[in-house]
Structures are given as structure tokens and as C-alpha cells.
């Protein structure tokens, strides 16, 4: 009897938590797909063109395709929390990172140490650009969206210039392993990379005070400072982390596709990342955050896109449907609507209000 009570209380707590709506939205999408096509999420084992047996199916392609977005959404969440704004240049800096990655690879024979070197250099360059944004925002107090507008405008052209005004390709079984399947492992590598990344980030948040400090700075910077926290350092740290995220995403995408096109690589991904953060119930105005929300948000976006493609919606028209779903989710999650629901529930159950 008491177990049931505890369960229902936990359930109630969950429904009032930030994750309720994203989880519900995801479940709704899943159910919708199952009704439409019960075999939608089926996983099968196929042999890919390298001769390896790999998992395939819609579920796999959703999890796989969302990888870059998940990583960037995590970075965007931390940025939003600490700076109270959004960085719209992540697509551009991913292009830059990808270009550096390609440039190093093309200059050498591709072996594992070379790949690592390319990754590290891409990471360093990405971090430098992100820190540049960080300085504008942390030191000059410029609004994040405005500051990042600069790199948004100039970033992709810079990526183009890095590769001498071309869209070069790279080929290597090692790279296709990273971007596709490693022989012997049926799960796509990007998914594995994402899992490792999420674990690392969670370890970082669990064993340091990063989460607490970032949130404090985002909620009330002056008060955070008077408690001994260094707001500038915190803000620069999130940009450092973003630089890492951006370089992983950019390099991953290059491995996946086999070339770098500065104009199209991860285009519009900043919008999707911001969406993921918002759908996940995080405030775009900074402060408290839950990474899980943004991750779920990223998978919602990917599931939605895949669902629409499966329904034969053309790629350009997908945007329109995406828009409708987004609006539905944020409207339902808006405080005004939530309050109205609450009032409805109270009047239905005739609750009395306690005195404090």
C-alpha cells in the first residue's frame, strides 16, 4: 500500500518537473509512429558495403543522425545557462573545425596518430574562436546573440579560406570507421562517441562544482562574485567546452560524409540546438538547466525529421511541419498555459489550499 503511495508521489513530482513535457512529447512521437507503421522502429541486421554486419533501421538512423546535434545541444545548454543568451555561430565554428581537420588530414597519410593530431588541432582552433566570442561576451558584456552574429557572418567564409577556396574530400577506412561503423561493432560509431561524451560531461558535472557555479553566474552574477566565484572564468570555461563540442561535431560530420563543404556542413544546426535546449524545458534566459532535457530535445527533433521523411514529406517542406510541432510543444510548456491547466485541475478536484 505504501509502495503505491510513494510511486504515485514520485510520478507527481516528475510531472511537475522540467522533463515532463519533453519526455511526453517524445513518447507521443514514438506512439504516433508505431500506430502509423508498427515496424517503424524495428532493428535489423544488415551487411554494409564493407562486409560488416551492422544494425540498421529507423531507430538506428535516428540515434545516429542526431549525434552532432546532441553534442552541440549540450554545449549550447551550458552557454545559455552561464551567459543568458545563445551562440548562433556554432555551425560556422563547426565548419572551421571541420576545415582544419580536413586540412591536416590531406597533408599527411591518414593513420591513427594523424587523425588524433588533426582532432587536437581542430579542437584548439575551435576553442580559440569560441573563446573570442567568450571575450566579447564576458569582458565586453555584449549580448551573446549579437556577439556570435560576427562569427556567424564571417565563420563559414573563413572555413572556405582555410581550404584555399575549395570543398576538398578525404578518404580513408579509418575515417569511415569513425563516421560510420568500426569493423566488428554493429553500433554506428557516432552513437558510441555520443555515449562516451555524455558520460564524460556527467562525470565533469558530478565531480566538480561546474554546474553549481555556472547556474549561479547565470542567475545572479553579482551575487555569485560575492560568494567567491569568478564569473569571467566560468563564462570562458563554457566557451572552452563549447569549442570541444564544436570540434567533435565538425570532425564527426567530416568523417561521416567524407568531405567538407563550408556552406552546407551542419547548416542551421544552431537553430536546432537552441530548439533542443528550449524543448528540453531549459530557460533561454539562463540559469538553471538540465542537460537531460536538451538531449531529449535533440532526439525529438531528429525523430520528427525522420518521421516526416518517412511520410514522404519533401526535405524543404519538412521545415514547415517542424515549425508546427515546435509551436505546439512550447505553447503547452508555456507558464501561461500550465497555469490554466493547473486552475482547471484545481477546480475539478475541488482542492483546498493550505496555509503557510
Amino acid at each position, binding site marked *: 500500500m505504501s509502495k503505491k503511495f510513494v510511486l504515485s508521489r514520485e510520478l507527481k513530482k516528475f510531472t511537475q518537473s522540467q522533463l515532463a513535457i519533453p519526455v511526453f512529447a517524445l513518447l507521443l512521437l514514438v506512439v504516433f509512429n508505431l500506430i502509423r507503421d508498427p515496424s517503424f522502429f524495428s532493428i535489423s541486421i544488415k551487411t554494409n558495403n564493407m562486409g560488416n554486419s551492422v544494425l540498421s533501421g529507423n531507430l538506428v538512423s535516428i540515434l545516429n543522425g542526431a549525434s552532432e546535434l546532441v553534442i552541440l545541444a549540450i554545449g549550447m545548454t551550458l552557454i545559455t545557462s552561464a551567459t543568458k543568451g545563445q551562440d548562433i555561430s556554432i555551425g560556422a565554428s563547426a565548419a572551421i573545425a571541420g576545415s582544419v581537420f580536413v586540412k591536416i588530414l590531406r597533408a599527411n597519410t591518414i593513420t591513427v596518430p594523424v587523425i588524433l593530431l588533426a582532432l587536437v588541432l581542430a579542437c584548439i582552433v575551435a576553442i580559440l574562436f569560441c573563446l573570442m566570442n567568450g571575450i566579447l561576451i564576458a569582458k565586453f558584456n555584449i549580448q551573446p546573440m549579437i556577439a556570435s552574429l560576427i562569427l556567424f557572418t564571417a565563420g563559414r567564409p573563413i572555413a572556405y579560406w582555410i581550404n584555399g577556396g575549395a570543398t576538398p574530400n578525404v578518404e580513408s577506412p579509418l575515417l569511415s570507421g569513425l563516421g560510420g561503423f568500426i569493423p566488428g561493432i554493429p553500433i554506428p560509431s557516432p552513437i558510441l562517441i555520443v555515449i562516451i561524451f555524455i558520460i564524460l560531461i556527467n562525470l565533469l558535472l558530478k*565531480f*566538480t562544482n561546474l554546474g553549481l557555479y555556472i*547556474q549561479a553566474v547565470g*542567475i545572479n552574477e553579482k*551575487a555569485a562574485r*560575492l560568494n567567491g566565484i569568478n564569473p569571467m572564468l566560468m563564462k570562458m570555461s563554457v566557451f572552452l567546452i563549447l569549442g570541444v563540442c564544436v570540434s567533435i561535431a565538425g570532425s564527426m560530420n567530416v568523417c561521416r560524409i567524407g568531405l567538407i563543404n563550408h556552406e552546407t556542413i551542419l547548416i542551421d544546426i544552431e537553430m536546432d540546438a537552441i530548439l533542443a535546449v528550449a524543448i528540453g524545458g531549459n530557460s533561454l534566459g539562463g540559469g538553471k538547466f538540465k542537460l537531460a532535457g536538451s538531449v531529449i530535445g535533440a532526439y525529438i527533433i531528429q525523430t520528427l525529421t525522420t518521421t516526416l521523411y518517412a511520410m514522404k514529406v519533401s526535405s524543404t517542406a519538412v521545415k514547415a511541419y517542424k515549425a508546427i510541432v515546435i509551436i505546439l510543444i512550447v505553447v503547452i510548456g508555456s507558464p501561461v498555459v500550465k497555469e490554466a491547466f493547473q486552475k482547471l485541475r484545481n477546480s475539478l478536484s475541488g482542492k483546498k489550499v493550505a496555509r503557510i
Partner: protein
Amino acid sequence: MNNNVVLSMRGISKTFPGVKALSNVDFTLCQGEIHALMGENGAGKSTLVKVLTGVYTMDSGEIRVAGNAVSIRSPQDAQNMGISTVYQEITLCPNLTVAENMFIGRGKYHFVNWRAQEKRADEILQKLKIPVRAAQQLGTCSIAVQQMVAIARAVDMECKVLILDEPTSSLDEREVELLFSLMRDLKSHGVGIIFITHFLDQVYEVCDKITVLRNGELVGEYEIKDLPKVDLISAMLGKDLEDISKLKQQKKTYTGEKEAVYEAYELSSAEGVKPFNFRTMKGEVNGFTGLLGSGRSESVRAIFAADRVTGGTVKMGGKEVKITKPLDAMKNGIGYLPEDRKGDGIIQDLSVRENIILALQVLKGFFKPFSKSEAEKFADEYIKLLQIKTASKDTPIKSLSGGNQQKVILARWLLTNPQYLILDEPTRGIDVGTKVEIQKQVLKLAEKGVGLTFISSEIQEMLNVCSRLVVMRDRNIVGELRDDELSQDNIMRTIAGGSAHNE
């Protein structure tokens, strides 16, 4: 004062999720009457005012303005009915001019005639002796001037009811007198004024009647002449005043070694603090006093390195140390409860627990987060010790009343076990009951050997707890009073006539 009732509120009730803020409250205001509305934080004063001004809608009750029953659903409604409000926080737009701020949102005009607007505004400003030009951008004026512009706006709207919510918090004595003469002027013209304040002296100086609320309920309405101060406090607290008088005997009982816990020589900061010398002994409660703007807060902020330190040497327990940022001060055992609770103190969306452990957590280090159980233990300890009223330790601190928020910040610094604790206006905007508790805590700490610096704009409070007062005027130290020298008269005299010397 005639018997024409200009405002009558009957049976007002208002409930928020989980809290009954007002319960069957009555309030009456007559023409030409200055009526104080008093009560502890959480008593319901600001809720009552917000119901009257249309920010909240009441759950039940009736409001009559000049005899007619009205329904007030928005600030615009309230304004149209002749109810004007000047809030504690400046509710004007800093990017507009003074003239625009005086007239925007009022009346039925569609087009703006800049010249006429500024001319009219200048007339009003000169009449009220407010030192600002109508064409000036409001954001470039001082806070005191901004408040006066807010009052000028209210006054010009020929209101029947003028509500002043803590109008004197940011004004110095001269400005307070200006305000009072304005109020008396309005009173003679038949305006009814609701005056909300925590300054008891001001209430007795200018008000005709007092209404006291407690815990969302009406305690009573009294004529000033029938209610001595003692009874007023008793009505607000619901208990006797023994506690307050007992305090005075509790001072100066530290018997340990009298050594300096903190010393500063030629300390100066970028916020206009000129080089000054200062010392706090173990077990001593000292304070900085002076008029608003004299530099008290800036001086203690320089001690904590809250502002950029530009010079000077500091010693803790005799050893020279370098304090250039708050973390340095904290590592040396200094704690600082800031003057601006909302802007510098609470981290709004974080829980009570997180707010309590924050400073200690930063001291412990980036790589050593407290476990949830450790944090909960600390939080429970201090919630109990300071009797913090909160639904749970996970409640966001912004949901607590001002007094309880203050207790949380105090808990935060007590938890760090400071050697030297600086409290800047720890009791501002706080009900009398909590005030007494905080003063008690201060004396308890002093007994244990902690050095304390206490700042309050209420001189009586300072006299209650401090054994030494540093007097400031215009950013200079002009005197120091200790032990028997401590009296209101001496302080006033020193502020007025002391010569500048920074030790």
C-alpha cells in the same frame, strides 16, 4: 481631517498557491489623511497594496473609492480611478527623459508635443524643488532624484489616493523633509495618503493613523495619538518588548584576548573610497554610521574586495595578507552580507539549501562538491537555528519572504565560520521580530570572539549592538565614538561637525 472616506476596503482576501496572503482585511482611508500601513514581512502589506493598484486581483472583498464600488483589474484602472502609487523600486524607464516619465501612460492623448510636455514638466519640477531638468535622460540621474520624479508624477496626476511604498529608503534627511512637506501639502488639498514604511520615527512624525497587519490579518486601526511606540511594536509582533530591552544588557561580554582580527592601512577602492585606516578587534561589534552616501557601504565593500581595491595593506591576525577579490577575503575568514539583498545576495532560482552552502562550497574548492546529504545536513542545521520559514530546503529562495531570505544569507556566512563578519543593513525591510533575532545572533557571535562590523540606517539599532562607531561624512571618516560616547546626539553632532581624519 474630515470624515469623508475616500477609500474603503472590506473583507479583502487573496490566496496564492500554498499561501494565504490576505484574510478578510479591512482598510479605511479618509480625505486629507496620512495613514501608515505597517506590519512584518509576510504580514500582507504589499499584497494589499498590489490588490489596490490592480497588479493582483483579489479573491473576495469589496473596494469603494469615494463611496462607489469599483473593480480594479489593472494598474491602468487604478490610475484612472485616481489611485497613484510610488513604489520602493524605481518604476520608471531609464531610457526616457524626465518629462516623458512624468507623462507617459497617462491621459487620452495620441500625439506627443515635446515642447509643451517639457515646459509643463519643468514647471512641476521647479514647484516641487526637484533639481533636475525635464529634458534629461532619467538614467543619468541619481536614484534619489529618480524617486522624486516618480513622486512628482504621482502628485501631478491629482490623485485622490497616493500610495507611498517605502519612499524614504534611498533618501537622506534633507530629502525626507522635502518629501514630508510635499505630503503635508497634499494632505491640505484633501489627498489621502497611504504611507508604508519600517521607520517608526517617520511614522510618528507625519502620520495621523496607523493600520497594523499581521500574518495576513488585520490587527487593528489606531489613531497616532492613542498608540505609543511600545504598543505599536507589540501589535506588530504579537508579543512583548522585553526582548528588545534585554539586548542592551547583553553587549560587550567577550572576555578573551583583545587582539585585532582585521587591520587595514590606507585602504582605498575604485568606488571613491579614499585611503582609510580601520581595525576590528576580536569579539568587538563595531559599525560605520553616517548619512546616505557618506561611504559606509563602499568602505566595507573595500574591506571585502567586493569593489576593486586600489591601494593599502591589510593584516589578518597580525600577518599581512593580500585581498584583491572576494575569494581572498573569504579564505582569510571574512564574511560579507551585502546591502542589496536582491541584487548581490540571493541566487534567486537556486534552492534554500544551495544558497546556504554556496560560500562554504566555494571555499572548499571546485573539485570537491558536497554530497547531497552533507548539504542537506548543513541546511537543516541552519533552518532550525535561525528559524527560517520555508516550505522545504529545495524551495527556490525567491519564494521566501524578504526576512527569511535575509536569514538564509546570514546562514550562508555563519556556515563559513568567519573570524570577521560584515553585515551591511542586515535588517533593512525586515519585520521587528526578525530584526531582534538577527541582533541577538550578532551579539552571540561577538561573545564567541568573532569580530563584527554592523551597518544600519537605524541609529537605534546600531546603538543596541555596537560598542564602537566610525562616523563618516561625504566619503571621509570624521570621527569615532566608543562606549559611553555612544548616543544619538553625539552621532548627529559628529556627522555635522567632525573634522575629516581617516583614523
